[in-house]
Structures are given as C-alpha cells and as structure tokens.
C-alpha cells in the first residue's frame, strides 16, 4: 500500500502543469459582465444619435432655422415660429426661484445638522428630510397647484397671480431640491477633518466662526458641486412645471404669470396624439437634446470641481 501511494504521488507530480487552461465558462461570464458594463455607453450613444438625428430633421423642416430659434422670442408651432426664448426664460425663472429657496435653506440645514445638532437630534431629523427627497415629483406638482398657488393668490391678490404661474412651481421645486443640496453639502462638511475644527476652537473661535469661516470654506468645492447638481436637477425637473407653471409658451419675467418651460412643453406636446415625423414630434427631440446638453455640461462641471479642488489635508 505504501509503495502504491508513493508511486501515485510520483505520477501525479510528473503530470502537474501550471500552463493556462481554457476556462470557457469563465470567459463567457466575463463577456456577459463586460457587455453589462458597456451597455451604459449604448444608452448615451442612443440618446445622442436619436435626439441628434431628429433634431437635425427638425432644423431641416421648412420654416425652421437655428439662428431664428436661438434669437427670437415666439414659440408658436402652428404658425411655424420656433423661438426658444419663451421656453428658456420660464425655465430660467423656475430654476432661479428654486435655487433662491434651496441654496440658503439647504446650506442652513447642512450646517445645522453637521455642526450644531447633537447626534440624537441629527439622527432623527436626517431621515425626515430624506423623506422629502423620496416623494415623487408629481406629488410636488399637486402640492404646487393645490397649496402653493392658492397661498400666493391669497397673499398677492387673485388678479395679480394667475392660476398657473412660474413662482409657485419654482418655490415648490426649491423644496424638492432642498434635501439634495443639504445632503450633498453635509457630506462635504463632514469630510472636513476634525483636526481643523479643533484648531479653530483652540484659538478661541466661537461655533459660528468655526462653522462659517473654517469649515464652510474648506468644503467649498463640495458645496459648489452640490449647487450645480441642484441647478441641473431644476432645469430638468418636469412634473412640477407641467402641473403648475402653465400651458403655453409665454415670454415673460413675471413669476405670477403662467409660462411653459422646456420640459413642460415636451410633456404637453407628447401628451396629445403625436404623429411621427411631424414638426411637433421633431421639436421635442430638439428640445430634449438641448436639455441633455445643458444638464450634461452642468454635471461635468460639478464633477470637475470636486476632482480639481479636493483639498489634501494629509
């Protein structure tokens, strides 16, 4: 028996090979995983190709030209007027109002939670604010139309504030974006090392001085990124404006008057019966492409800021 075992061992030893063996199962799986990873590229290419193709068709339609689109202030598809400014100004209005609410409040919340609140308060308040971020935007739209608009009309007068208006949509959009800005800002604030806070406290700084003059400046890149992401979110936000901002392009800077944003227009046009290759059909692709480019640029800027200005403390 013993002899046999030794022989077996010898035999085994002589056949050991460290050469690479083909593992077909592994290769197939790896291929599938690679495909999954690569799939997201298809989505981007799909967006660029489809939106670009139809947008091109849009600008080749009779009566449409790019220069007029970018410079004129009337968007009236039925008479072939495609000036983007009325859609753009109302998008700007709602975004501006939303950010005017979300930036100060979001920063206030973030500083409070990160620098002031004791752990117990913080762990109660944070999930409550996260609920705000999880509510579907259509619910915010409902809120804008049935709560904020009546409130504004109560305050400023029913003949001043129209039933549909960009102000109400903007304000509610601000509430929607608040938790986004506050949680990103809070992340940036809590990434500031504790030693920096200690340094400031040890120099006899008050809590406010530590928070606003040491911690916030040190987290500035993260805060800037949060604000840009917030803007991008506001520009692309759809349901609140579709419900509350008004149906019909309107070149105005008054927050009390109804005016359709880019996203609102897309929703209204595509909600009806949309026939392929009509000018309306092509126009939503052109607008979608425009929206895609704006938000993409904003997101890239925000990522670049974070990478470029990340302070090295070590």
């Amino acid at each position: 028996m013993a002899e046999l075992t030794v022989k077996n061992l010898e035999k085994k030893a002589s056949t050991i090979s460290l050469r690479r063996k083909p593992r077909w199962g592994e290769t197939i799986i790896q291929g599938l995983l690679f495909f999954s990873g690569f799939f997201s590229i298809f989505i981007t290419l799909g967006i660029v190709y489809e939106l670009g193709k139809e947008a091109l068709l849009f600008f080749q339609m009779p009566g449409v030209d790019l220069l007029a689109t970018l410079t004129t202030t009337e968007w009236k598809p039925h008479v072939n007027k495609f000036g983007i400014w009325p859609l753009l100004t109302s998008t700007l209005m709602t975004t501006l109002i939303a950010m005017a609410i979300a930036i100060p409040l979001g920063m206030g919340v973030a500083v409070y939670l990160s620098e002031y609140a004791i752990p117990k308060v913080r762990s109660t308040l944070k999930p409550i604010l996260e609920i705000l971020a999880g509510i579907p935007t259509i619910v915010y739209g409902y809120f804008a139309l049935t709560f904020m608009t009546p409130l504004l009309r109560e305050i400023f007068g029913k003949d001043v504030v129209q039933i549909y208006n960009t102000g109400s949509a903007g304000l509610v959009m601000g509430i929607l974006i608040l938790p986004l800005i506050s949680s990103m800002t809070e992340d940036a604030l809590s990434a500031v090392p504790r030693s920096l806070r200690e340094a400031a406290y040890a120099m006899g700084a008050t809590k406010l001085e530590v928070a606003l003059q040491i911690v916030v400046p040190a987290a500035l890149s993260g805060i800037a990124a949060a604000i840009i992401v917030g803007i991008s979110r506001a520009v692309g936000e759809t349901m609140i404006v579709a419900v509350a901002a008004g149906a019909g392009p309107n070149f105005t800077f008054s927050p009390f008057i109804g005016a359709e944003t880019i996203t609102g227009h897309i929703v209204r046009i595509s909600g009806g019966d949309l026939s392929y290759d009509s000018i309306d059909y092509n126009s939503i692709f052109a607008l979608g492409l425009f929206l895609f480019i704006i938000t993409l640029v904003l997101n890239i800027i925000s990522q670049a800021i974070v990478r470029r200005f990340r302070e090295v403390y070590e």
Partner: protein
Amino acid sequence: MKEIAIVQGFENNLDSRNRKGIIWHVLFQASTIVGIIALIALMLNVIDSAFGYVAYEARMDPDSLTVDGIPVEDQSKDQLVALLQSTLSSGAYNKLDNETLFVDRSREEVFQLVVERIIRPKIVQVWKFWPSLTRSDEIRATVTREYPKAELDFVSWLTYDFVTRPQTSEPLTAGVRTAVLGSLWTILFTILLAFPLGVGAAIYLEEYASENWFNRIIQTNINNLAGVPSIVYGILGLAIFVRALERFTSGKMFGIVNLTSENGRTVLSAGLTLGLLVLPIIIINAQEAIRAVPRSLRNASFGVGATKWQTVWSHMLPNALPGILTGTILAISRAIGETAPLVVVGASTAISFDPSSPFSKFTTLPIQIYQWTSRPQEEFRSLAAASILVLLVLLLSLNASAVLLRNRFSRRF
C-alpha cells in the same frame, strides 16, 4: 484681564460675537424647521383633500325604482338584473353580459351597476377635510339651500373599493386598480432589464475592470447618465422602444395582434424606458455594496485557488447581496414614482381595462395622479389626493422593506 487685552490691541468683543452666534444658530435651525414644515404641509394638504363632505344629486331618483314597496337598495339580484334589462338599451345590456355573465356576478356587483348606469349620482360640490370638520353646520345649510335634492355624505375618497375598482369617468365610482396594476406590470419589466444589467455592470467595474481610460469612460458615463433628466429618457424610449422596436414592443413579432397596442405604446415600452432610467442608479448603488465587502475575503478565496468567478459568486456576491438589493429597491421606488418619461412614451389617458400582457396599453399610478390633478373640478383633486396616498403607502412599504433588509443582513466585518 480686560485691561491686558486692550493694551495688546485686542478688543473684548465676545458679547457681540456670541450674539451673532445665537442669531445664526437660530437661522440654521429655522432652515431645518422650514424643511420639516414643508413636508408636513405637503402631507396635510393631501390628507385635507382625501376626506370630506360630498354633495351629490341622483340623475334618476332612487325612490322611483321602488318595486312592490321594496326600495332599490334592498332588492334581490334578479330584480336588479331585470331593472337593468328594462332600463338600459339592449346593446348596452348585452355588452355588460358579454364582459361577465350576469349569472356570474354577485348581487353587490349588480347593485353597483345599477348605481352607475341608472341612478348615476352626480357630484355638485366637494368640501375638504378641515372645513368639513369645522364648518359642518354651515355646509349642511348650504346644501339644503342650494341643492335641495342633493344628498350630503362624509366620504373617504381613499377606501378599499377605491384601490380595487377600475378607472371610470365618474368620480364617485372611479378607482385606481387599472393604474396600480399598470405600475406593477411596468415595474416588472424595469426590474427584468435593469437588475441583471446593473449588477453585471457593477461586478464588471468593481471586480474585472482594470484601471485604464476605457473603463474610466464607462464609469464617468454612468455617473453622467445618473444626472440626465428623466424626460430625456422618455424621449429616448419614444424613439427606440415605441417607434424603432415597435414590432417587438407591440407584440406583432410574436404574432400577437392586439388592436389596442399596435402603436407600441405598451407596458413593455414603458417598463424598458424606466429600466434605462434606473440602470445607472442601480449600478452606482451596487458598486457601493460590492466595495463594502472587504478585500481580505476575496484574498482568502483566491488563496485557495478559486477562479475569479468562483470568488465573485461564492464569496463576494452573498455578502454584497443585501446591499445590492437595498440599492435596487430604492432605485425601483424611484421608477414607480416617475411620471414625465411615461407621458412622453405614451401612457393612455383613459383606459378602464386592466393590463393583461406586456403588449397592453398602460397607465400607471403617477400618470393617473397627473391626469386627475390636471382636471379643474375639485372632486378629481380629491381622487388625485387619494391616489397620492396609495402611491405613498406603496413607496413607504418598499422603503421600509429596504431598511429592514439592510438591518437584518447588515454584517460587521
């Protein structure tokens, strides 16, 4: 000590610094409170519309339907069927009989039909919850003065029946079953597309991808896709799933001829569109879950001669799975709440039949809310409020299950 400070050129300014500190502290706290108040206002506003008094008039006086002294609500099923047969046109009656044989319907269902088709209550005015509570006498007075024939009822728009009834154009009998089923069907295809692709991509990026320009592009691209507005996905879905792949998404390819879905605006298109939308979110969440599994575990597996896939399958995945599932559930709840892309893809405005296949026309809960919110009449706002409550309960239970999953399986390394 104060004297020393002044000699050195320092002012004793502590009082004013502390005052400033208190003012800002209050401001920061106030921001937080404003956020919470907004949440409360949002919820109360919904609840306020979901309950309250409703005054309605019957288009046909129920008393006139009394047979042999038995009021209509106490009549037997046969009597009610006879009533329907005698009142409705024969075409309408036969259509009802064809949908479901009267023999198979319960008395309750038949009675419901009598109410819907014959009595046909019509809402004349709706009050919200708060006025209904505080000014009920006034409301009663108004009703007796202005609508002498109307009945006044305190109703909860959100009822079990509301959830189980199909959509109709009559506010009093409308329900969200069609929309809820539409949402579930849609989400099914969202999950089927996004979960395997998302987890696969996350595994590829975390375990297989080496650090080079190509994989960096994939990663950057995913981060950027997560920031693309949802409506752009809707437009993409319209171009790809509804139009280019119409033969597939309408079922023609499989020989299914369904008149209602021949344009490709189907449950399948909607689900796939939302799948593209949540894919980047699922990938990013799954990557985080995978990254949380310690390196040492993989090394242990490689150390005993396991292949890469064996390591991933038997060691990494089981440990990362709770995190991956939690992230997926959160992404799915985002998809359930989406409205804009589905409007663009072509949700139907009014369908009363339930979706029955991937190739059915569809509506979803948020779409239903959108449509009811857009109607000017108060009763539709109330229906929207009730559907919002259904949607929020659905999302809340999803999120709760995500939290439970995280707590139940969270392992400490």
